């Protein structure tokens, strides 16, 4: 039976970090809400952490588990990261702290039942039992109904934390039984400061921040190393398409649409580049650019383009990104986008090398 998956160290729960609320970046508001509850001993029995991917929901949930179980004392507002309990939680070895992840595409009723059976038992060695349901919006209807039972009559000592990127996809019956804590996208400054502090070069950090949409998970994903070259690759390809005419663009749209995850990033590259053109056009301030490593090309291109063309393109790109989050057909949206770009910035954005 697919039972609860214990948390495994992943990219976004940085193994070097001992956890705790101190390890949470740019979520002061959420942390304040949770820590106030901890300090006064008034924690809810069920929380709903809602916010975009990779902004620290899981880190916060683990920090909550650490604080609730910290051996240093009761009613502490943060784990000490040093006691055995805090260390076990950070390493995913604590018997009373479980992270349940979707089994395949959905969170299944068996997983929720296993959680319920475990919740009925007293804690093994900790003070409170914490169940963290990652991707709560992926619960099947049956799973959600089974969870309701646990949420309605929560056995003492149990805290359930639901993590979700789309709270609207959860049944209202679930949401109304949880205390909702909103996690917002991490502010660019905070994210950039963090990246610089981890030893990433300033220019690179700026580019990463602009492409990660306030998500520390994405900012720390392994792809960021090659961010600069992926950007160049994409912009060159786009340039080639614009040069070769509509047929090539339609072909390109089809290829781009196939890779959904890459698509978002490519559009972010495009949006950041156009934004830089706009900045260069009106201010000529190099330090304001996102693509500082390509400052010269940006300045040069901005020379040759009218501001209106840049603004139009930017609007079209942002419109497409917006449409895609609302489930627009990627291929059609892209064809439309590329053909409109051809009208405004026919010269392409980056010099085609070959």
């Amino acid at each position, binding site marked *: *039976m697919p*039972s*609860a*998956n*214990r948390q495994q160290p992943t990219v976004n729960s940085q193994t070097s970090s001992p956890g705790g609320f101190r390890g949470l970046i740019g979520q002061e508001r959420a942390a304040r809400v949770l820590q106030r509850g901890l300090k006064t001993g008034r924690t809810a029995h069920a929380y709903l952490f809602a916010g975009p991917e990779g902004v620290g929901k899981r880190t916060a949930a683990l920090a909550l588990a650490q604080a609730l179980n910290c051996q240093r004392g009761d009613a502490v507002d943060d784990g000490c990261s040093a006691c*055995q309990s805090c260390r*076990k939680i950070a*390493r995913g*070895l604590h*018997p009373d702290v479980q992270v349940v992840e979707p089994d395949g595409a959905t969170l299944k009723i068996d997983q929720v*039942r296993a959680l*319920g*059976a475990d*919740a*009925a*038992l*007293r*804690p*093994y*060695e900790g003070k409170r039992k914490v169940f963290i349901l990652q991707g709560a919006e992926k619960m099947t209807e049956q799973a959600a109904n089974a969870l309701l*039972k646990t949420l309605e009559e929560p*056995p*003492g*000592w*149990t805290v359930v934390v639901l993590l979700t990127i789309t709270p609207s996809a959860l049944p209202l019956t679930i949401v109304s039984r949880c205390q909702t804590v909103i996690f917002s996208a991490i502010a660019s400054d905070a994210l950039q400061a963090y990246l610089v502090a981890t030893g990433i070069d300033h220019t690179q950090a700026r580019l990463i921040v602009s492409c990660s949409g306030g998500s520390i998970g994405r900012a720390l994903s392994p792809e960021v190393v090659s961010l600069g070259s992926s950007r160049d690759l994409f912009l060159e390809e786009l340039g080639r398409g614009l040069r070769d005419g509509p047929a090539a663009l339609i072909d390109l749209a089809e290829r781009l649409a196939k890779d959904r995850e890459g698509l978002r990033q490519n559009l972010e590259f495009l949006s950041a580049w156009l934004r830089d053109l706009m900045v260069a056009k009106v201010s000529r301030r190099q330090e304001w650019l996102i693509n500082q490593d390509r400052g010269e090309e940006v300045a040069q291109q901005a020379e040759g383009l009218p501001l209106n063309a840049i603004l139009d393109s930017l609007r079209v790109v942002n419109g497409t990104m917006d449409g895609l989050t609302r489930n627009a057909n990627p291929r059609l949206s892209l064809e439309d986008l590329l053909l409109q770009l051809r009208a405004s910035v026919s010269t392409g954005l980056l010099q085609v090398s070959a």
Partner: protein
Amino acid sequence: MHIRISRDELYSGVGPIQAVVETKRSLPILSHLLLEASSNRLSVFGTDLDVGVRKRLDGEVLKEGSIALSARKLYEIIRELPAATVELNVDADLTATITCGKSEFRMKGLPRDDFPSMRESKEGGILLERRLFRDMIRRTVFAVSSDQTRYTLNGILFRVTQKDAKMVATDGHRLAITTHDGDLLKDRKPVEAIIPRKAATEALKLLKEEPGEVEIEAGENHLLLSSDNTLIDARLIEGQFPNYEQVIPTMATKQVTIDRDALLAGLRRTSTIIGERTIPTTMEFKPGQLLLSCVNLDLGEARERLDVEYQQEEMTVGFNARYILDFLSVVEAGQVTMHLQDALSPALFRAKDDKRYTCVIMPMRI
């Protein structure tokens, strides 16, 4: 860590404990056994977090220490070893070397700190005769509910007061209560704990039937049972057991006395006609007689006539035969009594003249 121990001793410890260990859990260390050597004892501990078992084994400890080793593999290795002395040596980077006769095995282990902590008996607990404790479990465990939504019913209530010790289990359709009179507490705190079914059945398996005592210590979250060299650590069910006393019928004045073996055999025979779906077994009481019948519309019907001691007016009640069979199979007495009120009220089952064990069974509509 370095120890010398006889193969049979090691096998007797590892065998039963590895059966408790669960490999399906995703906390990987739970598939391991924790071995700890100190002062001429080797302790072996395994747990699936619901039930943990530790055994102390006699061995020669050359160097104290600990290691967690894969339960399955360790068991398989020891099972195949010849009956000779086994030497277990663990080096600094947690590699265990097992030598026995001409065989040698090397296995990677995990550190002790990663293992869920092991409970220790603190104050000592109440003492109960082992056979009696087993009997109390056997007489109640079948009535434990498997309905996960009412989790407090998923275990046996174990309540010890100054005047008696009780075990109670119910699934809403039937209830089993067994009582042992006498003060077991001897000035200790009263015990009230819900023991999960799994822990109860493991205790039945692990506690030997031979005479002896079991020491029971109920903590806030755990129940510790220790007997000889075995310690069972059961995580308790959270919550309040329902008030069972109010379902024990007080108006059941019609009394029937039946030969236990005859009723058992009769119900077994009539039950053969029952298919997959539960259908009631009709019990028709007449003065001096009980008529059992079972009608399965798809298959046919079965009838059985029993001689009983019954003096009141005729009445007919339907029961789930399974429930009565469960009761009969744990009763040793030669005669059992049923106390009835009417066709829709719960009936009380007891061994004749024995109030220490009671089953209450709800009738079925016929």
